[in-house]
């Protein structure tokens, strides 16, 4: 697959935005400014961007509790996201949702989700809409390795195939569900399950943007062609704890450092595109600098924004009641 310079720059910018956003949320959380449960996506950028860079507004995604990366990759406004994470009025959800419930339906981002396995059934619905209205759209459900054991996810595999829906199931296997290893919690295998439900499955190196891109391309094309669902089993790693505050004593000594050194999706992308002379370091550095400025502004904007007020408490429950 040949990629344009522009496309590659866009993808790099997305991945860097996720990384810088998450590193920054990590820092700000430590200062006590950010409330609640926050699950960071840093380390998994190639998955979100490798997939979402092939989607447009017709296409929908459903995310997980670890949703920031998917939101950014699907084009959500990072300034509004940051405000949301701070619980501010100008947030994507007016401060009512927070980190675990960022959504932008207009962009096809059906929401992060506080319920493990909450997304796959919803994505079958988005796919049904696309199929019924013949929009050509596809729908992508992200789940974790932990979420791959939830009945709601497994039922959705079956329903999507029985109804021949344009769905891609993406199992982001970062090795852990909270503190539990996927090597223990997942009996059989992700690809075996895909086969068991009669759909193609592909094992993907989730640190390599290009590997993700290619595997997703096949699955998305299949879906758009009306041939039904596929599953991608993406192996990757999270650079932070399950949530902010997790001491991570269940991980091996030096594990994260090793991933950061050897399996950093950003570094791997940079190496590949520079070695192939598609982009140069100077340009990529400029992208990074721009992202850092943008995230600085997002944090400043979030800090400066107002909290919602009592008048907001009872609104938005119903369209009409």
């Amino acid at each position: 697959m040949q990629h344009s310079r522009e496309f590659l720059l866009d993808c790099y910018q997305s991945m860097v935005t996720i990384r810088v956003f998450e590193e920054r949320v990590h820092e700000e959380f430590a200062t006590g400014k950010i409330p609640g449960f926050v699950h960071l996506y840093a380390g998994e950028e190639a998955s979100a961007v490798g997939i979402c860079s092939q989607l447009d507004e017709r296409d929908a995604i459903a995310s997980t509790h670890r949703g920031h990366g998917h939101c950014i990759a699907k084009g959500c406004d990072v300034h509004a996201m940051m405000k949301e994470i701070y619980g501010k009025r100008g947030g994507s959800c007016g401060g009512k949702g927070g980190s675990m419930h960022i959504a932008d339906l207009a962009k096809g981002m059906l929401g992060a989700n506080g319920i493990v396995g909450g997304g796959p059934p919803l994505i079958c619905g988005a796919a049904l809409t696309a199929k019924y209205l013949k929009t050509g759209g596809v729908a992508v459900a992200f789940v974790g390795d932990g979420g791959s054991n939830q009945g709601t996810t497994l039922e959705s595999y079956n329903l999507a195939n029985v109804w021949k829906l344009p769905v891609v199931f993406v199992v982001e296997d970062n090795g852990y569900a909270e503190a539990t290893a996927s090597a223990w919690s997942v009996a059989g295998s992700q690809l075996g399950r895909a086969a068991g439900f009669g759909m193609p499955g592909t094992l993907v190196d989730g640190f390599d943007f290009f590997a993700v891109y290619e595997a997703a391309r096949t699955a998305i094309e299949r879906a758009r062609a009306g041939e039904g669902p596929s599953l991608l089993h993406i192996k990757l790693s999270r650079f932070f704890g399950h949530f902010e505050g997790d001491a991570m004593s269940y991980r091996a000594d030096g594990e994260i450092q090793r991933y950061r050194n050897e399996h950093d999706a950003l570094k791997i992308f940079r190496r590949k595109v520079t070695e192939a002379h598609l982009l140069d370091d100077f340009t990529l550095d400029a992208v990074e600098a721009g992202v850092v400025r943008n995230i600085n502004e997002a944090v400043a904007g979030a800090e400066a924004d107002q909290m919602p007020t009592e008048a907001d408490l009872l609104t938005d429950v119903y369209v009409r009641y």
Partner: protein
Amino acid sequence: MPKKTYRQAINEAIASEMRRDHRVIVLGEDNAGGKGAPGEPDAWGGVLGVTKGLLPEFGEDRVLDTPISESAFIGAAVGAAATGLRPVAELMFVDFMGVCFDQIFNQAAKFRYMFGGKAVTPVVIRTMYGGGFRAASQHSQCLYPLFTHIPGLKVVVPSSPYEAKGLMIQAIRDDDPVIFFEHKVLYDVEEDVPDEAYTIPFGEANVTREGRDVTIVAFGRMVGFANTAADELKRDGISVTVIDPRTTSPLDSETILDSVSETGRLVVVDEAHPRCSMAADIARLVAEEAFHDLKAPIRTITAPHTPVPFSPALEDIYIPSVAKIKAAVQALAAKVPA
């Protein structure tokens, strides 16, 4: 006006909305029936025939059978609603909520609030409830109190064919998630139902009997029981108002409070279990907001705090009866100061 059953009324409501709006689709287990099978298509039309005939008219794209996987297909209905369709999904018996409640109460119900008002989820979930069918503990529950507790849901409990048609059309046109409770024992009940489409607004109670002495608030199948009780009591000189709230959420508090301000006496009839029930809910409303109008204790009539028994001998005494309603009203009316 033509007589129609509750079953026909619901069927007609769905069909007329499907004709009116191509975004309306129907899905559920055997909503057509015979999918993939060698015999007839539309073999069932729902387990008790409510969706019969929709498949031949609207085709497979709009009348979808499903595997038995309520989380997946109720969730799919929710997801389809959030992305532009107006699905009418069937949770066959409300007793099955336990395998798919998350998609209803954490997803559909909360999208709008969690997403800061930016989601619209016009899904209707039809479901059968109630006793009298000798269907035992896992196929006879009411459970509408559980749904009423949840902000973001609307809960409809139609008491007759006329009501069912108008409320179903409203439910389908409504932009919020609606849980539509169909009492299985009412399916064969007939009454006059217009052929044309009409809506009955949510949150507006129907006063089915007007009286001075006692107010009865009753839900679903219990409205008919309350009407019978009222008619019989009239002959004994006790004049009873019967209120059918039609929807438990939103609830028409005003009509109830107004009536109690006239009668000063309240009986609530709820086929559900007693604890945290609609009976309790209405009692709270009146004890908090119309206390000074009350002339006597509130009386609630519900099923007991036990699962629904199978044996007809037990089920018949389990379900609130006309006799129990009459006795409660008589006891209250006896306390009327001369």
